[in-house]
């Protein structure tokens, strides 16, 4: 049995990408965060099964990997929508009215922070400073950064995501 088959919940592509990260590092466990991000990129979040499979691939216990996974903001241990909407709530955006923007987003999507729209398209999450303070208030949808965002812009922005 090949290694990839042994840890069947991971695709060959995922395993390959993780192995490529491991190649840069002195030991397998050091690739923990990279591996989580790689798998999450494909699946949106890290399920218990994914977690166990990654832990197996890296030669560490699930508890050890989960300890790492639960430390980081960008690793989701619960399902998220197809696109994660992050509205910056840090100080520059605060000064520029991010609370109003978040209110508008909540209304538009019909969910509170942490919630996922019923159609599974969007999950709304708070995020710390996106490094776009000159474009405050800023938000990110998926990998795309927007700012400054006014309530009127939201339809246009969300319309661009399926």
């Amino acid at each position, binding site marked *: 049995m090949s290694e990839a088959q042994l840890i069947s919940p991971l695709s060959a592509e995922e395993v390959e990408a993780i192995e490529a990260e491991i190649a*840069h*590092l*002195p*030991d397998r*466990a*050091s*690739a*923990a*965060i*990279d591996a*989580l*991000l790689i798998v999450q990129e494909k699946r949106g979040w890290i399920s218990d099964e994914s977690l166990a499979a990654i832990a197996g691939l890296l030669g560490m216990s699930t508890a050890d990997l989960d*300890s*790492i996974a639960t*430390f*980081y*903001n*960008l*690793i989701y241990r619960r399902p998220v929508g197809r696109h994660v909407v*992050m509205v910056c*709530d*840090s*100080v*520059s955006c*605060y*000064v*520029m009215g991010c609370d109003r923007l978040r209110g508008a987003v909540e209304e538009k999507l019909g969910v509170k922070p942490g919630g996922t729209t019923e159609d599974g398209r969007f999950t709304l999450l708070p*995020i*710390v*400073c*996106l*490094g*776009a*303070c*000159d*474009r*405050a208030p800023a938000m*990110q949808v998926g*990998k*795309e*950064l927007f700012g400054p965002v006014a309530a009127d812009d939201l339809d246009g922005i969300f319309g661009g995501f399926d």
Partner: protein
Amino acid sequence: MHDLSTMPLTGRLLDADAAGKGVVDLEAYEASGGYQAARQAVTGMTPAEIRELVKDANLRGRGGAGFPTGVKWGFVPMDGAAAEGHKYLVCNADEMEPGTFKDRYLMEKDPHMLIEGMIIGAWAIEADKAYVFLRGEYHEPYRQLQDAIAQARSRGYLGEGIFGTGFNLELAVHRSGGRYICGEETALLNALEGKRAQPRTKPPFPPASGAWGRPTIVNNVETLCNVPAIVTNGADWFLELGRGEDAGTKVFGVSGRVNNPGLWELPMGTPIREIIDDHAGGMQKGYRLRGILPGGASTEFLVEEHFDLPMEYATIQAAGSRMGTGTMILMDDSICPVDMSRNLQHFFAQESCGFCTPCREGLPWVEQLLLDIEEGRGQPGDLEVLDRNADFIGAPGNTFCLHATGAIEPLMSALKYFRDDFEAHISTGRCPYREA
């Protein structure tokens, strides 16, 4: 064309912008002398010479603490048993300090400049591995860096036998899982090792024992971007660049209610008011400036009386704040200082790594008190409780790392400069900035 001898960091990318390209690509970078400094350093200078040069240039870290870069590099063991085996150069591109957006700009627009700076930095300490520790949310910089690294490798600037010498360097990008504390250099090392990003004890200091227990230098993006031009133009040139005591230029930034928020490369020592008025276009109509956080969310407020001061390490320090990242956040008169403090403390409490008690438990309490005061539930004595918490959480050494110290800096200064606002909240039981 911008003059690279006065705008070494942004001259190229402003040209690229002007040409409608957005990014300084490899051709443009090379055409403007790019990678010549690296070639010169690796083929013509010893590591010791580079370390001396950078020390002489008095380049200070642009990540917030302002530690002299050449001095830091000098701590790396260069011979004997401790020098055998891997050494690492890590670029701190975590940039999560609220109000800070300079590193994103540099990486997104001119990734080769960082790579070149890292080649020289790595050679200076004979590191054979380099990592860019990049914020996970920075998707565009990630793409740009990945492309640029591939290009640099294809030109032989990275990999085995760089510039035909025996110097090898692998450069990889590590994306962060996302947490402010990852920017703290020892927490960053843990994150790089794939662990929870809890800060580490010092000693050992990273130059002696860092990533995977090996000598490691951690430098900010902007710090490393300064290095190629120093090699090209020399230490004296760099010393001359600054307007006052400090050497070089700085990417200053302004966010808040100004007409033209953004970033500008200006000489060290440019006065605050000049940055705000001349470059950021002054305050928007109807807004009055009350205070600034001069170098990111973890620096103390400066107020009216300070606005003519030059942005210089010693001067800003003497005024009771820190130069930090040099990206300032403006508080105008429509913003409630209590609520802004609450917003800041919310950030720091959320981003506490959870390791040490004062930060983990103290900051949420502070946040909760500020919320109470803001929402009209403040009680007599609350300010004393805040003061005491601030004293005990904020004193360097009371917490394990400087996260909590940074958290308390804006709070302490807000309690000092805007105390009337706090007291008014408590005595009237409401926030005067909110519509009734």
